[in-house]
């Protein structure tokens, strides 16, 4: 990973110096272990603050919506797929972007690591596939694969799908990954079991909307949750309203979600809401063999139709 950040810095500096772009969006060092802060570099000087490591799980495409400047953007696999979706949905123009692609070997899950050590963490470093966690009176090493974010463990698009230049060599994609094991397990439940499962899954929800606001797909000026004429969803903490919010938000991501995990990473109470979006991702891939954000010249599944589309559900 370390070579990558030098390449990113050097590219960013060149782009800004040659006025190819007005700003470069990337990450800068966070103030907590395992945290980085999305950052906009406006001058060559700012670029020195940029970092790249296994804590860059927030999807930077989220910061592109409706921007007018020329932007250099650092993009790992899922970010690049969301940039493709953004361009297809006219939220940003391809010519505005200079994409610095970063082949990714997965981002680590700070919630998972904190739960495994259960004591305060002072520093987390990474060295050749191992994650070293130093904290109050302990020093532990994990295999990186053990502590990956759930989505990164199942990722099959680690290399960026769209880029102007690369900040590192392409990595080998993960093979024969079963992305939908958990989803089939839920589908196999009886209705009551499933109801109980979702009750437990969504009960801690605070309605803070971090999942919606961290998601690059959610850019509606007025979300259906904030609409009062008509009022679709109650504002209280009733389970019916929380379910309505989560299920309807997931439906809005059907055929668009790239499973970048920003929603799960942002949730302050640790809800695995990707169980909802991946069901719709599974349907899209099984029914329409569609994977979102892979190429600029294919319209998204719910935006077009083909004559040979399966219609077994139409009687």
């Amino acid at each position, binding site marked *: 990973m370390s070579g990558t950040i030098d390449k990113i810095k050097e590219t960013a500096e060149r782009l800004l110096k040659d006025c190819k772009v007005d700003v470069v969006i990337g990450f800068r060092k966070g*103030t907590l272990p395992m945290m980085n802060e999305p950052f906009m*570099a406006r001058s060559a000087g700012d670029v020195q603050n940029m970092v790249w490591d296994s804590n860059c799980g927030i999807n930077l495409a989220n910061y592109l919506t409706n921007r007018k400047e020329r932007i250099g953007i650092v993009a790992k696999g899922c970010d690049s797929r969301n940039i493709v979706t953004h361009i297809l949905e006219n939220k940003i123009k391809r010519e505005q972007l200079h994409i610095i692609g970063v082949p990714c070997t997965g981002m680590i899950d700070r919630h998972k690591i904190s*739960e495994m050590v259960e004591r305060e963490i002072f520093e987390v470093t990474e060295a050749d596939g191992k994650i070293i966690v130093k904290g109050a009176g302990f020093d532990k090493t994990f295999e990186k694969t053990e502590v990956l974010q759930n989505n990164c463990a199942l990722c099959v698009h680690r290399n960026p799908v769209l880029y102007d230049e690369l900040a590192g060599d392409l990595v080998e994609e993960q093979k024969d990954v079963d992305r939908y094991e958990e989803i089939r397990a839920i589908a196999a439940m009886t209705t009551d079991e499933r109801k109980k499962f979702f009750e437990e899954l969504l009960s801690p929800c605070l*309605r803070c909307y971090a999942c919606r606001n961290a998601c690059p797909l959610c850019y509606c000026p007025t979300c259906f949750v904030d609409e009062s004429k008509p009022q679709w969803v109650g*504002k209280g903490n009733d389970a019916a309203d929380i379910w309505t919010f989560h299920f309807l938000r997931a439906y809005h991501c059907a055929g668009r979600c790239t499973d970048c995990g920003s929603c799960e990473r942002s949730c*302050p*109470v640790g809800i695995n809401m990707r169980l909802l979006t991946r069901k719709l991702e599974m349907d899209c891939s099984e029914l329409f063999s569609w994977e979102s954000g892979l190429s600029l010249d294919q319209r998204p599944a719910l935006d077009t139709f083909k004559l040979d589309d399966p219609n077994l559900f139409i009687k």
Partner: protein
Amino acid sequence: MKVIKIDKGKWESGLEALKKSYTLLGPKNLNHSFEFKELKANEAPDLTGLNTRMSAKGLVYPQSQAMFTYTLDQNDADHHIMKPLDKKPSKRAVIGMRPCDADAFLLVKRNFDTPEYKDPYWIEAYEATVLIGLACTDPCGTCFCTTAGSGPASEKGLDVILLDKKDYFIAKPITAKGEAFLSASSWTEEMNASQAEKDLQEAGSAAEKKITSFIHTENLRDKVSMEIYNAPFWEDVSFSCINCGTCTFVCPTCWCFDIQDETHKNKGVRMRNWDSCMFPLFTLHGSGHNPRGEKVQRVRQRFMHKLKYYVDKYENGIQCVGCGRCVRSCPVNIDIRRVCELMNHPENATCAAQ
């Protein structure tokens, strides 16, 4: 007031006695994160956590709270008229909260208990709640209470302060409410007050030495508000913000709320829910005009309110107790400690301040 020595052996039995007259609440470890929960029979608080994920504010000021009920049914005598609720908050006690959360209630009380208007819901719940704090012995890296007006053994806002001495607790009552609480328990063994005081001081200063995080607020009071408001660093501070409500919901000193009516068939409730200045809807006018329509304005508002407007309005320090929850919960790591440094010296903040 008599200081009580609670032998750990008698801890559980004392709690059971208290459960007869108080609803007891305390931290419970729910899949790796601590939350305040009601302690049922034979349940004791789990005091091994550093601090709870959600602050204790939800115990006095629930996220969703009924204010009135009403009926729209025409043949009801008082249809369409708002009826206050007749249920009053039960006597309850929170055991094992941290001193910073208790201090937070005092900061929030200034908003709900004003000379002109008194909020009955908040005040009645607050007065029915006894706050039993556990002094911090090893604060974490994001705790900056000592420079935010509180401290690991601060007694501000607490009714009783406990100090863990391995095989017994020192229980020092601070208010009459605290003394009444201790007398309702079965813990009767008294302890030398000055010895207890010495232990508390020692434990407090030992913990204070372990604190590694500080903020500086000395200039905030005298700076002209608009000078900080117009400082150049707000664009940089707010860029990463995704405007979710996490920081305001986990914060013990945030109090903003929204009022909503919800009707089902003919009956309904006027309720209030936590709201957040981070949401665009918070300031949206009916005409569509939004005085804080941009993200930078909303992020600036949150920090200006906590570290400047509150200081000017009540002339009594910042609206923050340094618990660090917003720092730990923010998905994009916006850090109030960094922003406070910028606000404390707006003049030398360059545009892309690091």
